[in-house]
């Protein structure tokens, strides 16, 4: 019972799931890969657009060096050419920019929808075991905040990067052409800039990693509070919660501030380098013009270009910033996506054999099964069990005996640590998921409803069911009357977690949902515990018909259920300690006989 790792070393606690090296880059690449032709298109658009934008100073230089003397000579051709050139460039840069934004938005939104979908689908495919440790808040954080930072990178960052790089290349080439010596001098300034960028990247990555974790912690606390608002209020948790949240919030604030300050540091450093370079180059250029080694127009163009060259440094910073923030988020997302489902889908699924005519339900076999939760000790020591097709088995036993665990194994929420469970001779591990769900359906002890209508909640197991079928399922267990009395009947929104209806009503809806799914094996885990006795009786009465032609495993503390069972299993400490028909066991004067007697006594 003490095998669990001491708190603090679990990667789940630290919110750092192991991901392969460079997983974030691989992820980003795999997301962008399908859009490479659009990416090229976007790049070309920007390339041409930048050409149009950067032509401006060139035209100015041309105007000063050629058009002015030409006009003085009475020739206006050059001036008209310059004016037309400027007009064309202005129009082109606007139109191309528009086209670029649209293409870029298409890329980034498609990438985001794909990423969100991947996170969602992957989270759904991961086993309960994972979810129990990762917590919903973190998952929500991955799917919202972290995706959001990637959105920022894609929607603005991409453009900034391409623009900055393009204009740097353009201008560098132009400068080299205008005057190779001044051009080379400009190149020299790239060295220190590169150093500044690298150091910024390293430091801000650390800051953003911390921030992403801190964000998730804030979200976890936030969602837990809002989901448990009733106990929070009833137990006056508001102030302790304020304090606890304040602490997490403060940690987030620090991390946030750290990340912003990294950016400030970068901006100062890079600006300094740029401005020193400008002063030096202008000085040298002016000196040469003064010496007559350089045309005035060239210097003017140079000066204009230099400003433009270094202007986007801030924007490069913004890009790097959103890149680092996105990289930290991508890292977390990649860690999530790298998680293997603990209950994997079979590589080569075996179909569930057709039910032989006349066979009711499916046969279930537990073969030397052992099971331990990852966070606890062994719950089920080695045990075996055979349930022939069509049998109705009641499982009883003290709370915590392992009844729900047994049921969850049969529904393959978890895989056994040892041994195997078979459905009509096919191990659950090898069954295709769709077959498994046609084969086994479970009404869990917690009757969770999704927000949405009653009908939607009932049709979860069979989305194509008609309204008549839904109503038939509800009628079968006596849920129809209350549903029909709701404001919009079957189309009433039950709100988050079914809060619009009462606990007993939620159980009825959950029950109807399982019936509608029409499985070969039906598992009911305390499916009537919140019903009043007439309601429970009605359900039990209905079971005679609805369990006909299925195998059923019924877990119940109220032994009235047992009356309809063909067989009773009594569990204790994860073991089956008694097994037989109800009559046999009652006659036996074992545990069950005692239980039954106590239960009889408790009735009216």
């Amino acid at each position, binding site marked *: 019972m003490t095998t669990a790792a001491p*708190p603090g070393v679990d990667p789940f606690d630290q919110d750092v799931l192991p991901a392969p090296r460079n997983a974030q880059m691989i992820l980003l690449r795999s997301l962008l890969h399908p859009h490479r032709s659009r990416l090229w298109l976007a790049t070309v658009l920007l390339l041409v657009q930048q050409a149009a934008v950067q032509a401006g100073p060139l035209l100015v230089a041309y105007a000063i060096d050629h058009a002015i003397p030409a*006009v003085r000579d009475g020739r206006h051709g050059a001036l008209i050419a310059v004016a037309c050139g400027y007009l064309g*460039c202005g129009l082109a840069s606007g139109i191309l*920019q528009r086209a670029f934004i649209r293409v870029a938005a298409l890329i980034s939104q498609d990438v985001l929808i794909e990423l969100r979908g991947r996170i969602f689908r992957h989270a759904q495919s991961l086993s309960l075991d994972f979810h129990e440790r990762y917590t919903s808040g973190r998952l929500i954080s991955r799917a919202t*905040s972290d995706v959001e930072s990637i959105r920022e990178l894609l929607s603005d960052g991409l453009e900034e990067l391409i623009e900055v790089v393009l204009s740097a290349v353009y201008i560098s080439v132009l400068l080299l052409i205008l005057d190779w010596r001044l051009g080379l001098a400009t190149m020299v300034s790239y060295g220190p800039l590169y150093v500044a960028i690298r150091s910024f990247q390293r430091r801000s990555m650390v800051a953003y990693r911390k921030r992403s974790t801190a964000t998730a912690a804030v979200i976890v606390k936030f969602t837990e509070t809002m989901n448990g608002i*009733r106990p929070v209020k009833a137990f006056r948790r508001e102030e302790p919660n304020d304090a606890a949240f304040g602490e997490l919030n403060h940690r987030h604030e620090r991390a946030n501030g750290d990340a912003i300050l990294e950016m*400030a540091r970068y901006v100062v450093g890079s*600006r300094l380098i740029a401005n020193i370079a400008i002063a030096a180059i202008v000085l040298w250029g002016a000196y040469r013009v003064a010496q007559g080694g350089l045309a005035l127009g060239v210097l003017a163009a140079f000066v204009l270009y230099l400003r433009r060259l270094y202007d986007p440094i801030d924007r490069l910073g913004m890009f790097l910033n959103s890149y680092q923030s996105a990289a930290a988020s991508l890292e977390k997302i990649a860690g999530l996506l790298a998680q293997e489902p603990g209950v994997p889908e079979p590589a080569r699924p075996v179909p569930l054999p057709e039910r032989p005519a006349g066979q009711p339900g499916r046969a279930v076999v537990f073969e030397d099964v052992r099971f331990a939760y990852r966070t606890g000790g062994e719950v089920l020591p080695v045990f075996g069990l055979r349930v022939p097709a069509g049998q109705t088995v009641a499982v009883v036993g003290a709370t915590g005996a392992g009844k729900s665990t047994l049921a969850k194994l049969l529904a393959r929420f978890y895989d056994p640590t040892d041994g195997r469970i078979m459905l009509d001779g096919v191990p659950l591990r090898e069954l295709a998921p769709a077959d498994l769900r046609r084969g086994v359906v479970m009404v869990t002890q917690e009757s969770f409803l999704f927000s949405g209508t009653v009908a939607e909640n009932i049709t979860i197991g069979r989305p194509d069911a008609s309204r008549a079928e839904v109503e038939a399922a509800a009628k079968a267990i006596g849920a129809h009357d209350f549903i029909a009395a709701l404001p919009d009947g079957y189309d009433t929104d039950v709100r988050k977690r079914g809060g619009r209806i009462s606990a007993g009503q939620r159980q009825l809806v959950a029950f109807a949902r399982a019936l509608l799914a029409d499985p070969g094996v039906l598992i009911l885990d305390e499916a009537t515990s919140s019903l009043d006795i007439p309601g429970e009786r009605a359900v039990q009465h209905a079971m005679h018909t609805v369990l006909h032609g299925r195998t059923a495993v019924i877990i119940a503390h109220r032994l009235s259920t047992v009356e309809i069972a063909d067989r009773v299993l009594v569990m204790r400490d994860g073991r089956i300690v008694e097994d037989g028909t109800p009559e046999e066991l009652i006659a036996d004067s074992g*545990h069950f006989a005692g239980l039954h007697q*106590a239960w009889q006594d408790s009735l009216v």
Partner: protein
Amino acid sequence: MSGAMPATTPDPAPAVRHRSVIRSLLRLWPYVRPVRIRLGLSAAVAVVASCMSLLIPLVLKWMVDGPVHDKDTAGVWLGGGLLLLLGLLEAGLFGVRRWLVARPLAGVEASMRAALYGHLQRLPVDFHDRWASGQLLSRATMDLQILRMFLAFPLVFLVVNGATILIGFAILFAQAWLLGLVLLAPVVPLMIVCSYFETHYALAARTAQDQAGDLATVVEESVLGIRIIKAFGQHRSQAAAFRGQARGLWGTEMRKARLLSDIWAVIMTLPELAIGGALAVGVLQVADHKLSAGTLVAFLSTALALRWPVESIGFLLAMSNEAATAADRYFEAMDTPEADRSGTGDAAAGDGLRMTGVRFRYPDAPDGGPDLLSGVDLHVRPGETMALVGATGSGKTTLTALLPRLHEATGGRITLDGADIAGLPVARVRELLAVAFEEPTLFSASVRENVAMGAGPAGVTEADVERALAVAQCDFVAGLPHGLDTQVGEQGLSLSGGQRQRLALARAVVGRPRFLVLDDPLSALDVQTEALVEAALREVLRETTALVVAHRPSTVLLADRVALLSEGRITAVGTHAELLRDSAEYRHLMSGTADGAREESRAPADAAETDPAPAGAPQADSPLTDLPLERSEA
């Protein structure tokens, strides 16, 4: 389920149309106030810094027209030195600007978040019932981040770039007023385009934010409901809802992008054309010797330096609009008034729990229907335990929710020891009264913390926790990996159903409350554990005034008297035996059989047999405690 989403979020559209961006943003002031000096300073520094960048071309002009022209090397050095100085200053100021606001703005974001969290915690339960949780979360995270970004950039830069443009134009006019006029030409069309853009973009931004909130809701639900999704294979409607939401968001984001691309195109093209015009005019003027070449260079480089501030206006406007809608969303939640927690009275002693003519209906109940509770009269005497029995959906849970004022009764009076709960501070009511809910919600904390929180902020001793655990028969705790310090995991789902319910029970009794409300507290327990819990609970119940919602006779036996809730009223009160004898409905609820002949013949006999002897209930107890099968975890 996508169709259901909008119903859970308040309709945003009307709010958007009528509120101006500036008005929305002005509401941020209380949060910005503490950092106003730094924010103002940073704007001032930014203005100075961008003036530096405007000064640089002037120095260049001076160099070109002066030393360079005159071949004065000393002058060139001077100019270079000046440039360097300005450059250093500019870089320093850039840094100072960011440094000034980095931590304070993170602080503003954090304080707004803390305020929202604190406020939401104190909003009435029906607010939480109405609002999708993802909508609240997205306000607390994404919207606040947008607001911080707005304070850091668009706010400052709208000012700075506005100032830069004004100063820039002043310089331009000073240099060459005619060329300046040419540059001014596009201002009017630009303003028209911007205002058109603004209204449309704000709508799209709001829609996108709401959709992002819905998406968060779907993600959250699909994680919390993962067991159901697993139990039924892939939950197609949930996946479809997700796809639908994601597609919707995609569409809105594309709409935003299209708007943005249009405004960019206009904002880039018009000034460029104007500069082209100025260039042509300038060339002519230089050729006519009305203007020096140096002036033209300086003019154009100033104009080009202004290009970025002008172009930036497009996305600054976009960000401001997004910030305004984010602020709207934030304040929608913040504006919901907290429950009226008026009252300063305190409970006297010894009247127990009394409800007189209590009425209640849920805010969204269909009009015309009867109230769910339509005049409940009930008196639980001091020290007495009253069972509350009623059919599924009859309103028992609703009734218990009125006591700790999770919902406010719409009529009638509820008194605790003579004091009207509406006149007591809410915290005091909740101190007097502890509840075990029918859904035993635990928090991801240790077992000890989960139990101890039942005593409220005051805290409890270790002995109290032990006692409460003993009452609820939580001996399984000793077997958990870290005993009392074991983390129970989100919602306590790493425990069995019965274990969870017993911890919730321990939490309710740990603070020895004067009043205790237990909503079907034993539903997940097996018969034997139930008997043990009941035996221990009797000790506790002796000292408190308790209301216990019960479905089973075994639970009813805990109580001294039973009240029957039916059609919104208490229709019968008496001992179990009395009610069995007198009330057909009660008989039906307790036995499940139709009120027929078979039961008629049984009921009196059974009733006599199980006639409650509150202190001991020996008939029910004796066969149980002797049973060989004990709690398995022991």
